[in-house]
């Protein structure tokens, strides 16, 4: 009956994603070893279990109302490094930024990039770049090693934790000579000018993202960056003596940005725990969508809708646009070769729900898709349109997890 001692138990926690919308209660277990994770999985209740990293996904992907949530941040050990082969093995709860900071003095950098997110969360959210191998805890409590190319591996990348719990990952590393990127910014009067520049044969750079104002004059700023080799450091620069030193004070860049140098992303630990702007008590909705190459007119259309005079999208103030070089391999992989558009809007914005539904329709019509790891509100009927290989994912899931042990608020909401 109601108001039962569920509450009295500290292990139950009300969880949300980074957007702080749609909270739900779950039994939060924090395993410290693979064996404890398997034990917690086998001890789950009737409402299943899901893995969770640091809860940075925008929507409800890392929640499981009334069920078990395996919080994996205590599984954060680096268990193997093969410098010759250029791979590192770390547990799934390892923060990729922390991993990068540890490896930097050795002149190595994870190809998966670095940030506040965990290795397991990044894999499950679809960032499979540089992931060579992973260890997956299955519904039966047994774990197995999967290599790239295995169908279960591909489905796990972007699989939102619904194929199992990633316990550890082997990540490819690349050499770096310095801890810096050289950054260039280019300013454009509007989004059209930006896209014209971008599609007009600008050479691709590893880090390129644009920020487009949705209010005011709609200006756009494009930031590109490339790693700086040792020889590229300005003469007399302090970093010449210790090119791989970590920034001295967390949160303060080692050097002023003069000369366009800035630390590699993820290297400088954010001083404020949450990099997200405060949206009051109502939280925010993160919208992230992919538009295929060649459908730039659809991208322009989306940006125009966002910046329209009475558009609820203006509440987001600016949008991010990135170029995406390659599509993902798995049936639920989000990346599509082409473009990625994202913005965060306060959840309290009047008319936001209907407006985002309109964007969904446009994205789907252009052959694009909404990023499920960030989603909190997609209309379920659009899912098969955006992810045409959804049935393959369902089939695979039915074969490895016939009783749907792995379940999340997102999988319930979208009927995954």
């Amino acid at each position, binding site marked *: *009956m*109601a*108001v*039962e001692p*569920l*509450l009295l138990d500290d292990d*139950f926690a*009300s969880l949300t994603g980074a*957007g702080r*919308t*749609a*909270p*739900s*209660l*779950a039994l939060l277990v924090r395993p410290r070893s693979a064996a404890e994770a398997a034990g917690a999985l086998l001890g789950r209740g009737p*409402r299943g279990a899901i893995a969770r990293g640091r809860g940075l996904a925008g*929507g*409800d992907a890392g929640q*499981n*109302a*009334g*069920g078990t949530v395996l919080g994996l941040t205590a599984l954060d050990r680096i268990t193997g490094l093969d410098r010759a082969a250029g791979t590192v093995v770390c547990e799934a709860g390892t923060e990729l930024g922390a991993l990068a900071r540890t490896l930097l003095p050795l002149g190595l950098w994870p190809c998966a990039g670095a940030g506040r997110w965990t290795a397991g969360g990044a894999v499950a959210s679809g960032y499979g770049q540089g992931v060579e191998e992973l260890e997956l805890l299955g519904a039966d409590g047994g774990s197995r090693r999967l290599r790239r190319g295995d169908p279960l591996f591909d489905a796990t990348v972007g699989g939102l934790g619904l194929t199992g719990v990633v316990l550890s990952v082997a990540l490819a590393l690349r050499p770096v000579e310095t801890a810096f990127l050289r950054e260039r910014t280019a300013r454009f009067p509007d989004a059209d000018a930006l896209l014209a520049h971008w599609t007009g044969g600008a050479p691709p750079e590893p880090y390129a993202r644009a920020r487009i104002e949705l209010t005011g004059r709609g200006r756009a700023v494009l930031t590109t960056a490339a790693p700086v080799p040792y020889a590229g450091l300005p003469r007399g620069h302090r970093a010449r003596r210790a090119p791989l030193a970590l920034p001295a004070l967390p949160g303060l860049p080692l050097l002023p940005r003069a000369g366009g140098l800035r630390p590699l992303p993820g290297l400088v630990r954010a001083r404020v725990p949450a990099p997200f702007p405060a949206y009051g008590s*109502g*939280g925010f*909705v993160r919208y992230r969508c992919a538009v295929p190459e060649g459908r730039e007119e659809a991208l322009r259309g989306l940006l125009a809708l966002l910046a329209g005079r009475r558009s609820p999208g203006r509440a987001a103030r600016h949008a991010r646009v990135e170029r995406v070089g390659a599509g993902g391999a798995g049936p639920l992989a989000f990346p599509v070769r082409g473009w990625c558009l994202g913005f965060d809007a306060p*959840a*309290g914005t009047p008319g*936001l*729900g209907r407006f985002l539904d309109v964007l969904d329709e446009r994205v789907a019509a252009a052959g694009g898709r909404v990023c499920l790891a960030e989603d*909190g*509100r997609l*209309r379920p009927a659009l899912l098969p349109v955006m992810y045409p290989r959804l049935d393959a994912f369902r089939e695979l899931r039915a074969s490895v997890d016939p009783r749907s042990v792995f379940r999340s*608020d*997102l999988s*319930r*909401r979208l009927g995954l």
Partner: protein
Amino acid sequence: MKDALGAPQSLLLLGGTSAIGLATARRLIARRTRTVWLAGRPSPELAAAAGSLRGLGAEVRVVPFDALDTDAHPERLGRVFAEGEVDLVLLAFGVPGDQARDESDPPAAVRVAQTNYTGAVSAALVCAGALQAQGHGSLVVLSSVAGERGRRADFIYGSSKAGLDVFAQGLGDALHGTGVHVMVVRPGAVRPAGAAGRPEAPLTTTPEAVAGAIELGLRRRSETVWVPGPLRLVASALRHVPRPLHRRLPVPRP
């Protein structure tokens, strides 16, 4: 599951023919609601209500439910939760009673109290327990401005709503932090919309307006909602009006 904007996918309407309840159901079906359970006393009206919501594209199931038969609540309502997720429970049953007649017919007055208060307490507790086990969901309780302060014109109904209101506030606090959200809705007098789509008298409202306020309250996860909004100020002023004056104020029937 409710989405990030508080729109539910499934609705359990207690009081399946309630004008406010059905207006809310229609509004929510236009957003994300696909499954509706209509709980109520079997009648042609209930069947017609189910048909009208089906016409809007929802999957509708009818559950026999009598507020006065509290012994049957755990089994009847429990079955709904056993069948699937319930994102929103809307407690919309209630009877206004006939104040003048009920004053001289105590058994009739007791029926008003039992329907609006004890029946609602029972149904709300059953649903709250199930929502809590589910780990998410909203329970929306329709109270009334009549429960704010005793009034000559409707104190039998008013007292039942006052009891329900306090009960629901406390239940909301008990469930705070459990992922379950309790919202108390206090409408003024509700009249069907007139020709212009607006109610005639000030501070009266329409079922559609109450439905809109409920949708907004779900998005904001509000704990208390007044409809129309300015009623909050009026009620707070009325709370301080001296009794002799309050006695003489005209009140619209609920």
